[in-house]
């Protein structure tokens, strides 16, 4: 059976039973096996229903914003959740001592819709083995390339494990350097084609705020994008540009690349291509090797006397 899941249930159960946390955040059973849901266990019984398998998709870190108010919370953290927590701590929105982190080594989450489409039928289980994913269906096990099955955000992931944890469910996996292939491809287009690309995607924006409300960096008490002086409630393309420009700039140097915004977007806007552009330029202009990992000195909260004038080179490299 699923040993990781059993171990997690036992750790979370003990934490709750011992009163070390008042709540444990993980995944629980959803509509179908391929769609576990965010789960908030308040006692050992509820911890006994925790799910930990390759279908665990939604990002969890942002929930800490609400759930640490009443007392310490436990959380099962993949790399993305760990960085999200670091973001909340760096922004002084959550106290690190208010969170008990159970670190895991994540090999990527399977996208339930991609899996169903590939399998052509409901999928009951999945196993990520290196470069392939085995899906369990009523018609037996089917194998597909990893790159076809995982959530978009997991394909670009460089952080399988959190950087720190209070306990480890398993041996953490080392982090890697992020690549920005998608950004580079878009940079190669001409201005009009780039604009057409973004106009087409942003035209679909519903301004539902799913991206903002999924984001561990969008943790402000009040959001300027709710202020009609900054952004009226009109929903024209120019408003959507304003929204997404501002959102992306506000997380520039702060985005932890968890990709939850893009996963949450109901209309398929490639939001990470916006966030990653800032990341890539921060890396290149300000020599910050891993701009998505919260730094002691926030990239936009500091300067160096030798900073380049990025707009001068910008003309050529773009």
């Amino acid at each position: 059976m699923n040993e990781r899941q059993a171990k997690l249930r036992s750790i979370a159960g003990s934490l709750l039973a011992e009163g070390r946390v008042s709540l444990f955040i993980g995944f629980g059973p959803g509509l179908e096996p391929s769609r576990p849901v965010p789960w908030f266990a308040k006692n050992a019984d509820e911890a006994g229903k925790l799910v930990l398998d390759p279908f665990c998709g939604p990002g969890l870190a942002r929930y800490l914003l609400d759930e640490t108010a009443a007392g310490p919370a436990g959380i099962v953290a993949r790399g993305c959740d760990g960085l999200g927590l670091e973001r909340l701590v760096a922004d002084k929105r959550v106290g690190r001592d208010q969170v008990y982190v159970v670190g895991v080594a994540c090999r990527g989450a399977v996208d339930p819709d991609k899996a169903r489409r590939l399998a052509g039928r409901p999928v009951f289980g999945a196993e990520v083995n290196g470069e392939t994913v085995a899906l369990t269906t009523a018609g037996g096990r089917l194998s597909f390339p990893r790159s076809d099955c995982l959530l978009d955000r997991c394909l670009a992931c460089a952080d399988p494990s959190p950087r720190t944890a209070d306990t480890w469910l398993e041996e953490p996996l080392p982090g890697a350097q992020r690549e920005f292939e998608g950004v580079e491809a878009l940079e190669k287009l001409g201005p009009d084609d780039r604009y057409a690309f973004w106009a087409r995607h942003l035209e679909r924006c519903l301004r539902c705020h799913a991206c903002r409300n999924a984001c561990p960096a969008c943790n402000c008490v009040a959001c300027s994008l709710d202020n009609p002086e900054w952004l009226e409630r009109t929903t024209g393309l120019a408003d959507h540009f304003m929204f997404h420009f501002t959102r992306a700039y506000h997380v520039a140097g702060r985005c932890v690349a968890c990709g939850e915004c893009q996963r949450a977007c109901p209309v398929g806007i490639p939001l990470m291509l916006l966030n990653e552009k800032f990341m890539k330029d921060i890396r290149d202009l300000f020599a910050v090797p891993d701009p998505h990992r919260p730094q002691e000195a926030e990239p936009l909260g500091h300067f160096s006397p030798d900073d380049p004038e990025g707009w001068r080179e910008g003309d050529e490299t773009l």
Partner: protein
Amino acid sequence: MSLTWEPRIVGFACRWCTYAGADLAGTSRLEYPAAIRLIRVPCSGRVNPSFVLRAFQRGADGVLVAGCHPGDCHYTSGNLFTRRRYSLVKRFLEYLGMEPERFRVEWISAAEGHRFAQVVREMTADLRRLGPNRKMREET
């Protein structure tokens, strides 16, 4: 594009350097195109990047952010934050599809009236060539 069309440039000018430089251009009677309209701010570090987008949204054909030369900031470090912010913002705007000529960051001191006039002339010429901006602009 009609023959009478003239570009509209919104400029954010730090009061100590660029705004004073523009005043000097005035006292020196340096002629430059009327396309530019300045907004006086205490420091280029005050200029929120979303102000720039707002200008494009509302119909600016070009936007200029200008302040003291690095090292000369009245507040010591404001323009060094400007440099960081707008290094990113400039590239980001272009990434969204804006033509590079439409957004400029310049260091113009209080003594550089000529330079201010020159930047406005250059920008206006570039924008006349590009024509009206339609990108990220709301429909009227």
